[in-house]
């Protein structure tokens, strides 16, 4: 073990050189560590996104099938001049409950759209909203849009942050079967309404009865909602959130225990396709299922670019570090060729000569890895912030492109995933982009695995450098080494 003592004596005696070597090794290890940590954090973020971002499956009436049915019935009636009527079958809650029992389905929210006319108050009218359009599910037009939900927190507008409760409370599943409603703050201000007040609306379909509604909460819609109105759409302030049962009552008795659309939350986005396949077996061709895992895909895409950057950092620093460290080690060992000659003249084995250099550099590496471990989180965190900011900007741009491509949908039709009538399709995408940005935040933390990988990489670098440097010297006769 004398080679270990020699290594120690050398490190102690040449403090300046040892310190420089430690600093260089520490710097290289620090950047490799930062890369490894970013890469690991990005992978963890993707894994976490799989579990936390969530993916949804939306069950709605099959419009394609309905159109096909409309055309065939029109042709068979022998009255080609008659105006065709599209009949969309609402989703039966019994079917919904069957799907909800499937494995990996975490829960569901129902959406029922209806229309009504304000009776005890004035609806907000805009130049383009004198008449609201017919809502999905066959609701007749009215100046008030009724958005029936199983809970406001589960509705897309609230989940995406496009609407928030400012007074009172939101609707909960316990509000089913009640007349409790949540109205928009502008509508409340206009009519001096407050939480606890009762308003009346008249149904525009079914029995066309008047219904008393109790205000339990007031929400504020994002200012962009009005700007994103489609032509002919009712003002977003006229949207009243009710329980799905109340919305069905307003639409008429035949809509009892149905919904326009149901959004199922799948606990693991990776299982979303499998759940959709199983759910498809439970529904008839009158309904259709659509996937919505854009949040997951956005985070995945964002993290993909971060992982790619981290990969490049690791490889570039590892390659550059190997070259720099190898050159330093080669120079250092060549400088010590005379010492090698003396050792060989004494009969020291080549293995032990290499072992001495290895022990010296191993000690340097230990300190270097220590520096990298101590500073890895800080440097990795700073680097990660920059990379994530860049990746999130790209994601927003992509979402913007998606948003632009979706603005051609029919007015008043809720986008996949639901939303109040009148809200433009694509707004949810922007919300998702925001959510993806939040999800894309990396938690850079030094892990035992990263330290082990770094240490292994460092060991490989110094071993290769020592062998490359010493091989040329050790093959020589001691006399030649000492003479040269």
């Amino acid at each position, binding site marked *: 073990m*004398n080679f270990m*003592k*020699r290594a120690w*004596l*050398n490190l102690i*005696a*040449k403090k300046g050189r040892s310190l420089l070597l430690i600093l260089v090794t520490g710097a290289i290890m620090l950047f490799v560590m930062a890369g490894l940590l970013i890469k690991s954090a990005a992978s963890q973020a993707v894994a976490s996104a799989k579990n936390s971002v969530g993916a949804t499956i939306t069950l709605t009436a099959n419009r394609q099938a309905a159109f096909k049915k409309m055309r065939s019935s029109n042709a068979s009636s022998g009255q080609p001049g008659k105006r065709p009527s599209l009949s969309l079958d609402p989703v039966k809650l019994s079917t919904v409950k069957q799907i909800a029992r499937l494995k990996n389905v975490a829960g569901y929210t129902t959406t029922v759209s209806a229309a009504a006319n304000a009776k005890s108050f004035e609806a907000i009218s805009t130049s383009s909203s004198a008449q609201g359009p017919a809502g999905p599910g066959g609701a007749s037009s009215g100046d008030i849009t009724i958005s029936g939900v199983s809970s406001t927190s589960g509705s897309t507008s609230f989940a995406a942050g496009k609407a928030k409760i400012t007074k009172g409370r939101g609707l909960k599943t316990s509000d089913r079967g009640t007349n409790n409603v949540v109205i928009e703050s502008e509508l409340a201000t206009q009519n001096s309404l407050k939480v606890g007040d009762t308003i009346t609306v008249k149904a525009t379909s079914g029995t066309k009865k008047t219904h008393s509604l109790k205000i339990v909460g007031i929400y504020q819609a994002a200012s962009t909602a009005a700007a994103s109105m489609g032509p002919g759409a009712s003002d977003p302030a006229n949207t009243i959130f009710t329980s799905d049962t109340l919305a069905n009552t307003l639409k008429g008795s035949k809509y009892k225990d149905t919904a326009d659309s149901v959004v199922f939350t799948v606990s693991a986005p990776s299982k979303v396709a499998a759940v959709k396949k199983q759910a498809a077996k439970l529904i008839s061709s009158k309904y259709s299922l659509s996937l919505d895992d854009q949040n997951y895909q956005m985070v995945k895409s964002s993290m993909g670019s971060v992982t790619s950057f981290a990969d490049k950092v690791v490889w570039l620093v590892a390659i550059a570090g190997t070259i720099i460290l190898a050159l330093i080690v080669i120079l250092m060992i060549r400088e010590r060729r*005379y*010492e090698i*000659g*003396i*050792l*060989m*003249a*004494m*009969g*020291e*084995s080549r293995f032990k000569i290499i072992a001495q250099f290895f022990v010296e550099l191993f000690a340097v590496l230990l300190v270097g890895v220590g520096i990298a471990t101590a500073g890895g989180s800080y440097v990795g965190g700073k680097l990660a912030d920059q990379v994530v900011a860049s990746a999130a900007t790209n994601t927003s741009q992509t979402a913007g492109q998606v948003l632009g491509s979706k603005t051609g949908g029919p007015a008043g039709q809720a986008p996949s995933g639901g939303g109040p009538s009148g809200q433009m399709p694509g707004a949810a995408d922007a919300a998702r982009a925001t959510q993806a940005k939040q999800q894309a935040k990396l938690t850079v933390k030094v892990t035992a695995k990263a330290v082990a990988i770094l240490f292994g990489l460092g060991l490989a670098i110094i071993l290769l450098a020592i062998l490359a440097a010493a091989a040329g010297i050790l093959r020589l*006769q*001691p*006399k*030649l080494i*000492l003479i040269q």
Partner: protein
Amino acid sequence: MLETENLTYWYTNQADYLFQGEHLQFEPGHSYAIVGQSGSGKTTMVSLLAGLDTPKAGTIRIDGQDIAQIGLAHYRRRKVSVVFQAFNLFTYMSALENLMTAMAITKAAHAGDQAFAQAMLQRLGLTDEQMRQNVQRLSGGQQQRVAIARTMVCDAPLVVADEPTGNLDEANTDEVIALFNQIAHEQGKCVIIVTHEPSVAAQCDGVLRLAHRTFTWEKTPAPQLAKKG
């Protein structure tokens, strides 16, 4: 004890050999000087005897064993100790650490015995303080004494020195040669010194001259040590 048989060496061209077919014999308990002009091949000869290089032809035997068969690394570790003009000490160690390291590498009987190493350095005139200092802070004479002490603490029966007094003044030279003779006469080792100084050669028991690519005994310690053939 140490003998060469048909020893031949050349660098690049066989016709320009340094020496050829040399049969030499060195006995323990004596000091030998190899003299000759610069570039004649003296250092090459001691390098071969020390196992630092391999001959082009011929063999070197120690106690009847071919050193090539023993293994040159093993031979250098256990059978021979080398002293150079430039001292060849580990510059990052103290005198004491140099001796301890040499004893450990050569697996000497006293390996790990610091008191033994200290006593040897004291015997060669180094104070406690000097032996614990980095060797680069010692004078040339002191460093050479450390190098000689290194050969004394190791158990190698053969000591080879290449111009060991080249960097020393006259007083130190005499002291060093006296030490080599001490090693030979008191420890019973075979000491071979390459030198260009006649005064050094004169203090050795035997003198071998390399001239015109041939070794010739100028002085022999005993009749049986004369060059064979």
